[in-house]
């Protein structure tokens, strides 16, 4: 468990090659089944565990409407692409090589059980509520653009970094100080792209929002999505 081969241990056991998966997700076996809400919560076996694919919206304060009505889907960093600076997984959650799969739900999120501990609905697979709003291709296009913009920001050989480094040292920090106050330093193509996405009709219509990376510390790429629920749940 948790060693990257959790999806299908029998197939992978002959080699030690770790497989990529979304390390944010975990499983929960004590829950209320969607079909039998009146029977209450009970313990299930590992085969029928719920997969926690969405998380509390820590970008909203406890007393806000956002906290009550939205959840966060976290996209992991893809270390198989880059290790030196951030790069996020282009797999829509549920399609990773070591994702937990479930034949009955396939590639759309379905509320299959409610965890009494936090009162949230989850499904039996790694497929997250994001699947309701994006196709794998749309998702891949967005993330790949973001990864490209991050690369421009973090590339060590970039002109910005070389100039900042050399002039910064030789002018005794004066260059860095002036630059940090200039308009170029304050504008970020990455921020602009995320703002543009959040203002796009597609995002607005679904109520989906991308959290700016400076807020999540580039630790994960966080999508704010409407809270998943079933009628009467």
């Amino acid at each position: 468990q948790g060693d990257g081969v959790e999806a299908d241990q029998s197939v992978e056991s002959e080699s030690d090659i770790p497989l990529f998966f979304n390390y944010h997700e975990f499983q929960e076996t004590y829950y209320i089944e969607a079909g039998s809400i009146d029977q209450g919560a009970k313990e299930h076996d590992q085969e029928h565990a719920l997969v926690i694919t969405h998380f509390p919206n820590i970008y909203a304060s406890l007393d806000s409407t956002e906290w009550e009505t939205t959840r966060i889907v976290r996209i992991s960093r893809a270390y198989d692409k880059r290790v030196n600076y951030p790069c996020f997984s282009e797999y829509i959650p549920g399609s990773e090589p070591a994702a937990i799969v479930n034949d009955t739900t396939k590639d759309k999120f379905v509320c299959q059980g409610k965890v009494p501990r936090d009162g949230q609905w989850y499904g039996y697979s790694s497929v997250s509520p994001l699947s309701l709003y994006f196709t794998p291709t749309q998702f891949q296009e967005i993330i790949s653009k973001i990864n490209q913009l991050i690369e421009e920001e973090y590339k060590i050989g970039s002109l910005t970094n070389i100039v900042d480094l050399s002039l910064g040292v030789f002018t005794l920090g004066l260059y860095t100080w002036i630059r940090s106050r200039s308009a170029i330093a304050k504008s970020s193509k990455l921020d602009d792209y995320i703002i543009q996405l959040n203002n796009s009709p597609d995002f607005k219509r679904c109520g989906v929002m991308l959290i700016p990376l400076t807020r999540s510390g580039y630790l994960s790429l966080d999508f704010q999505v409407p809270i998943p629920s079933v009628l009467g749940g």
Partner: protein
Amino acid sequence: GRLRTNKVSNGTKYLPPTVLFMIVVPCVLFSIFETPYATTRHDNRSLIALVVLFYYFWLMTIISFVQTAMSDPGMLPRNIHPGQWQTQNEFSSFITPQDYYNIVTLPAHTSKKNHPEMNNSIDIKYCKTCKIWRPPRSYHCPTCGVCIQTHDHHCIWVNNCVGQRNYRYFITFLMGAISTSSLLIITGSIHLHRVHGVTSRAPVSILLIIYGGLVIWYPLILLLYHIAMTATQQTTREYLKTMSDNSVKNPVMHPRIKRVPTNIFDRGNYVTNMFSLMGQVRGPNVWSPRDKVNQTGDWRLQEW
């Protein structure tokens, strides 16, 4: 100034002012005794050039010292990845699932291909204190109470961590301190030579030569270490970890700074390695406690 909780231990809180004092005092003596001597002797332009160089490197030393001490070393925000929010009890709180206590091994990219028989993988860990999945090379500093990106070490002399966002200032400080001390020795020696070695005619020059000769060693040894460690693509923390794993008792007296075959960050070349750490991109400040957005409900500032 910075708004953050820094649990300064009483024993070390006088160290940064002490270093500042050690930088300022020789400059005052130099300005009183060496600068007038050099500038009144118009026959020697090279001595004046050395005096100018002294002030340049002295400024470099003091500015980079302040930058190392005061700038963000690369603090990561807290509470970005809590597991679940428990609403059952009267006291709601975050719950960390058992899975988050495991070390996760994931496939990793490496630019070094000299060990094709080995799987390139990376271990990542969850910081239970900060409630975040930490990126590689980040560590939690117990003194600062946060996780720091590309953490090198916590420096008690500057009372700050040295990490991704201030490593270049730290290296500049070491280079500045070495250059300043060297210039103290050189200008003092020239002065002494000009007075035909009569020590009573240049007593402060003697004092400054001795001072320069004493304080140069610590930054010099540190810089040599950092050159060797970065060339082999290691941070101080990673180097000390490797040493303790190989049960080397005293890594300072018996240094064994070698490349680690399993190091996926190794770029296969000493110069590229050194530049990739000393010149690493600082990246944006992701903590910015001073930004007024959502101050009251900001989870990033909470400690649980």
